[in-house]
């Protein structure tokens, strides 16, 4: 691919994302709450075991690795402080988003891809059914809020994981661990983590819906679009993390 066609392709994809977000926003007042709740259940509840177990073990591993480094400085008592801040500001939003890109992003792209491939989307247009209201808005908003809610769950379970490791390996009492973790956190840390989670949700949702509703000729294209939704979302989550962090730090401190 030469640079010009690469830039053109990027422009097309960016336009698709903009179109999805614009349509989801305009359709928000028309969206049925029951559709949103149904999609939120599918997106968030179905991913909760995966995100929860991952967060629990991630909390333990981070606490273990951090304690090993801190031990060299004789500062093991700081482990709860460091684990909690890094979880809230950075790690929980990032790994929740990456898991959501793989699960919810792929789910949206494949589900809506089948709707497109089987002619349902075209049939909906032919019967004046509002695709933005019926398909786009509930999925986009459920994915965004689901990513934020799952990030909160990941923070809580990550802290519990660190607490378990602290008690089992470092001899730190759970109450002491939790007190230090809570003392170390400021509202700005939560704002930073949850704003990023919302931004990642926007990326995952709009890519999943955009790749799902793109025209496709056969099942092979559906597979490629689903894979692209996951790969591009994961890449953009990692790249945008830096952008979001810079912006939030500059704004909130």
């Amino acid at each position, binding site marked *: 691919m030469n640079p010009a066609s690469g830039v053109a392709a990027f422009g097309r994809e960016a336009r698709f994302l903009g179109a999805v977000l614009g349509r989801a926003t305009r359709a928000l007042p028309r969206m049925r709450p029951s559709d949103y709740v149904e999609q939120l259940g599918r997106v968030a509840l179905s991913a909760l075991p995966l995100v929860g177990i991952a967060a629990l073990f991630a909390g333990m591993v981070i606490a273990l690795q951090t304690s090993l480094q801190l031990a060299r400085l004789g500062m093991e008592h700081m482990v709860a402080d460091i684990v909690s801040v890094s979880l809230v500001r950075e790690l929980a939003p990032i790994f929740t988003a990456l898991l959501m890109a793989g699960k919810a992003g792929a789910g949206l792209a494949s589900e809506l891809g089948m709707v497109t491939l089987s*002619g349902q*989307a*075209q*049939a909906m247009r032919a*019967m*004046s059914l*509002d695709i933005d209201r019926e398909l786009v808005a509930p999925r986009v908003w459920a994915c965004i809020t689901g990513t934020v809610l799952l990030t909160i769950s990941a923070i809580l379970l990550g802290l519990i994981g660190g607490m378990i490791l602290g008690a089992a390996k470092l001899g730190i009492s759970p109450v002491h661990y939790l007190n230090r973790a809570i003392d170390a956190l400021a509202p700005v840390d939560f704002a930073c983590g949850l704003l990023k989670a919302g931004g990642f949700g926007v990326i995952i949702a709009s890519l999943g819906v955009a790749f799902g509703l793109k025209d496709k000729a056969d099942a092979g294209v559906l597979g490629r679009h689903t894979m692209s939704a996951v790969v591009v979302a994961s890449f953009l989550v990692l790249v945008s993390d830096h952008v979001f962090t810079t912006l939030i730090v500059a704004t909130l401190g």
Partner: protein
Amino acid sequence: MSAAVPARAPRTAYAVRDLVWRLGPDFTLSVPALDVPAGRTTALLGRSASGKSTLLSLLGRVEGSYFERAPDLSGEVWLDLGEADGERLELLALGERELLKRRLRGPRVGFVFQREGLFPGLSPVDNIVWPLTAVGVKPSDATERARHMLDRVGLPESRTVATLSGGERKRLGLARALAFEPPVLLLDEPLTGLDPEALGGLLDLLSELTADPERTTVIVTHQRDDVERLADHVVFMDRGRVAADGSRDAMAERLSRFFLGEVPNASPAPQGDPGPQPPQDAS
């Protein structure tokens, strides 16, 4: 909407003007002028991939993608819904949002697809009820209409969409479009893949529906029976162009030759225009 509106008498339901749609290096739909008479049934005939379904998709404004207007599409497609509606619309000038707002597709222009586009998570009744209620029909009326239409196409309510055969799916797709009672009906090979008994019943039903002088029907078909029983007007397509069109009587000889395998050829492309090549994937 700059071009002169086509003449009213005799009324044409569709007036296609200077329509060009480049679908790729191998295929261009090019229809300089075509009138579809109102209150009649027009059959679109031609080889596979001659542009019949592509033209039909433009008449129903279901072409292209959900996201954007089809690129490389120009020209005009006028729709006249008659005096009662008092509207003549240039369809290609309307965006998706405007089409949705006007509720043109479905209630006023019904479309039956080759791929039926049924909703597999819904029962046959709900496949009909959902679109009806979405355009404002009361749920009780919609359910009654759905049951009536399923009965007319001979499909039991108790089946699930997943267990329907190909022919039954066709019947449900037809029932769903007919439930709106649209004044314009666009049918893309609605009777292919049906067993002889179902075919006879549905042909009788379509014959009855298309006999209504208030209803304009355009049907893409390869079946001789469909043309003989339903069509008043015939359009032959060839490589994205209209090869010939006229009343069924005027086209009688060409029709006979067509069903013997001799397809009318479109005139060569104007000089300087490479013209359409044998199409690959448009039909």
